[in-house]
């Protein structure tokens, strides 16, 4: 046997010594360097979630200022230039800095716990992705503070975003922020896929994977195929702007619609990148509060996969008024309607679960019910907008604003908030206040509908999107005032959430390992989970392994090292034990690499030579990252 096969094993260790050894091996070091060096997926996941919620607050503030401006006709709180930046920053922030990262962050925190492993795959890449994401988001908002915010909408259409109509650096910051966030998102996608493929607990065959994990797996594949499109597009845009290429310049053989095709080839799957994890959250919350496994497990998995595929066949429905051939439009109308089928199947499965189970109406379930109502409404207006003649009428109107807020807030934010209430006890060890949670739900549900339902009517009445004001004679004043008041109240509902989260951190009732008596593996470990996740890796024989007679998994694994970070690697489909692979130790190098990459991207906004200068530091930090340093995990 080689030296790497030696080392202290867990076999025969009693639970106290096991805990001591595993803590010593897996915990990160104290102090600033330790703080920046940790690769623990729970720590990184928590930072991701908090950062994404911080950007949600910034994006929400931008929305609140817009609604103040629109509360009255011909209002003068902000002018057209700032308004352009506000709606661009709002949309960009919500999509790129909040929704996608927060959904991936839940995967980072939960997937390793739910599949029963000690760490995420490629934990240093995971940490790297967080720092890149953080820098990209901060860069864009700091630029905004210096009056250099994005100004051409969250999809930055050319020629509006091109060198001619968007001079200065505003759109360059937008385009490079895209590069930052997509590098982060793509890294996380690979990390999640490999964790699910190779690190599942023994016995977790494909048909025993928790539905939330399935949803994050499918989402990660959608990310792999969708995100390169927007990176390509934003790279072309910044090249057009900075070095004089002509991708989107019709005068020199370029084409503005190329931007739209590339952007929406990413942009439509993006909706499902946000929505699919939310459906996974619903499928995780429902069984815990109905005491009944989700109805139609196989149907839901197939629906998730079908949605993932169909997501790539819809992009042109964002371009119905761009003058494309009619046959093409008809095809995309049909495909846009087809995708309602798998989503419909999921909704019927959830209703059946509620029907068959005995629902306990706690806050997480309330948000799931709110989701079902709001998302169905948004889905219905989606089927309407999929028809070319209707789309031609309502395009660029507030009807579309209403539609996508119903789909995105209803379809993603409501399940997300439910998920926060549901998994908060796991992450912190304390329950959130149920009473405050119910008030929060009631306020959020009522004010969301009060804010966004009238937008349908405003749109049908002709109010266009992205106008900084409107004349009193248009007859939209009363409804806009209602929308603005309700929006502010909706924003306040998030203050309740934030207050509940902060207060419960100290004053919440201790949760214990499994406060909801749920069935999946993350509840088999203490709350909050120790750095090593599981003292012994569980063996499972069921999709809800904790719902067996005695409330614990079918068995446990022994023979793993405790004096070095070691993971159990299993086979792809059957999850049979195959290898004991080391898991990388903490390292400062992912942060340094992220700083080098970030400085390169940032510098490239000002000079293309930054890419050349950046090569050296990037190479040095990557070598520092990968070069073995004699830790037992490197051997």
């Amino acid at each position: 046997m080689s030296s790497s096969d030696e080392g202290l094993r867990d076999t025969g260790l009693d639970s106290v010594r096991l805990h001591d050894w595993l803590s010593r091996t897996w915990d990160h070091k104290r102090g600033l360097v330790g703080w920046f060096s940790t690769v623990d997926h729970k720590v990184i996941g928590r930072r991701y979630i908090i950062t994404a919620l911080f950007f949600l607050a910034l994006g929400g503030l931008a929305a609140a200022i817009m609604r103040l401006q629109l509360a009255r006709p011909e209002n003068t709180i902000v002018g057209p230039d700032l308004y352009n930046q506000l709606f661009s920053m709002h949309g960009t922030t919500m999509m790129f800095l909040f929704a996608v990262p927060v959904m991936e962050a839940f995967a980072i925190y939960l997937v390793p716990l739910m599949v029963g492993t000690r760490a995420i795959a490629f934990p240093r890449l995971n940490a790297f992705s967080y720092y890149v994401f953080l820098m990209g988001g901060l860069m864009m908002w700091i630029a905004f503070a210096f009056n250099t915010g994005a100004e051409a909408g969250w999809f930055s259409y050319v020629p509006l975003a091109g060198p001619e109509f968007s001079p200065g650096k505003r759109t360059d910051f937008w385009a490079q922020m895209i590069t930052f966030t997509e590098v982060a998102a793509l890294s996380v996608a690979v990390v999640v896929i490999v964790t699910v493929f190779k690190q599942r607990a023994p016995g977790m065959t494909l048909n025993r994977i928790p539905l939330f994990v399935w949803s994050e797996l499918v989402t990660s594949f959608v990310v792999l195929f969708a995100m390169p499109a927007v990176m390509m597009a934003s790279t072309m845009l910044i090249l057009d702007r900075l070095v004089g290429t002509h991708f989107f310049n019709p005068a020199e053989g370029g084409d503005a619609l190329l931007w739209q095709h590339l952007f929406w080839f990413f942009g439509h799957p993006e909706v499902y990148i946000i929505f699919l994890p939310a459906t996974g959250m619903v499928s995780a919350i429902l069984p815990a509060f109905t005491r009944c496994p989700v109805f139609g497990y196989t149907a839901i998995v197939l629906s998730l996969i079908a949605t993932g595929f169909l997501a790539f066949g819809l992009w042109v429905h964002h371009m119905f008024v761009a003058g494309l051939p009619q046959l093409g439009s008809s095809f995309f109308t049909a495909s846009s309607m087809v995708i309602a089928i798998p989503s419909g199947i999921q909704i019927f499965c959830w209703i059946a679960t509620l029907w068959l189970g005995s629902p306990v109406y706690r806050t997480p379930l309330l948000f799931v019910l709110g989701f079902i109502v709001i998302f169905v409404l948004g889905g219905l207006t989606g089927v309407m907008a999929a028809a070319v003649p209707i789309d031609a009428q309502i395009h660029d109107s507030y009807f579309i604003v209403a539609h996508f807020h119903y789909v995105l807030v209803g379809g993603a934010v409501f399940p997300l908030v439910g998920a926060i209430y549901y998994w908060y006890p796991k992450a912190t060890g304390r329950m959130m206040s149920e009473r405050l949670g119910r008030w929060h739900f009631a306020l959020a549900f009522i004010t969301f509908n009060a804010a966004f339902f009238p937008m349908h009517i405003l749109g049908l009445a002709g109010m266009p999107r992205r106008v900084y004001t409107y004349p009193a004679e248009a007859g939209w004043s009363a409804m806009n005032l209602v929308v603005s008041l309700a929006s502010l109240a909706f924003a306040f509902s998030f203050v309740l959430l934030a207050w509940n989260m902060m207060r419960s951190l100290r004053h919440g009732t201790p949760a214990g390992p499994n406060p909801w008596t749920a069935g999946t593996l993350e509840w088999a470990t203490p709350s909050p989970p120790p750095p090593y996740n599981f003292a012994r890796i569980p063996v499972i024989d069921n999709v809800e392994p904790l719902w067996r007679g005695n409330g614990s998994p079918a068995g446990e694994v022994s023979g793993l090292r405790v004096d070095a970070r070691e993971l159990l690697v299993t086979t792809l489909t059957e999850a049979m034990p195959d290898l004991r692979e080391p898991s990388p130790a903490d390292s400062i190098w992912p942060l340094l690499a992220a700083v080098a990459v970030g400085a390169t991207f940032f510098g490239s906004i000002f000079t293309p030579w930054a890419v050349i200068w950046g090569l050296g530091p990037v190479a040095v930090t990557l070598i520092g990252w990968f070069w073995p340093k004699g830790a037992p995990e490197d051997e």
Partner: protein
Amino acid sequence: MPDRPDLDLSHLPTAGFGSRSAITWGTYGFILLEATGFALAIGAYFYLQSRSSEWPLGVIPPDLEPGTILTLAMLASLVPNHFIKAFARNHRVQAVRLGLVLMSVVGVALLVIRALEFAVLNVRWDTNAYGSIIWLLLALHTLHLLTDVADTIVLTALIFTRHGHKKRRLGDVEDNGVYWDFVVWSWLPIYAVIYWVPRW
């Protein structure tokens, strides 16, 4: 939980090759997303071509020689690359070392030829959209070529240290070889698009 562990896994090996190992799946993941990037760039090329009445836009196609020589050399490099992967699997460290030195030299030579390619494209990136897209295609592939050559050189240095005998490091050699295969095979459609589509 019961105190009695059920499944003793102390006999499991600590490293494996190919699809058994997590790192290989990570490599596949990155290959998949980068291949998507190449496919989209090629798609953008044909989209721009379809929007133009003449192609290439008022310039002559790139000279064939450097690109063709590079293509043949890259295809030839698949042979030593294949053997290095096999040597790594069979734990033949000396053979791996020699092979990696060879691949490092080949890689640097390929980068030199690649530099010549840029010189004979016969169009600048800022001349027109045709120039922009072929510069983008070539630069995108060069980024991958450069990355893998740098990776190969670092790996060569690593494998000459005491780490060279570790099974995990030999797994890294295999993954580097898998990535090299991708760099070579992904070049073929790009070569066809840059050099032959304008001649049709």
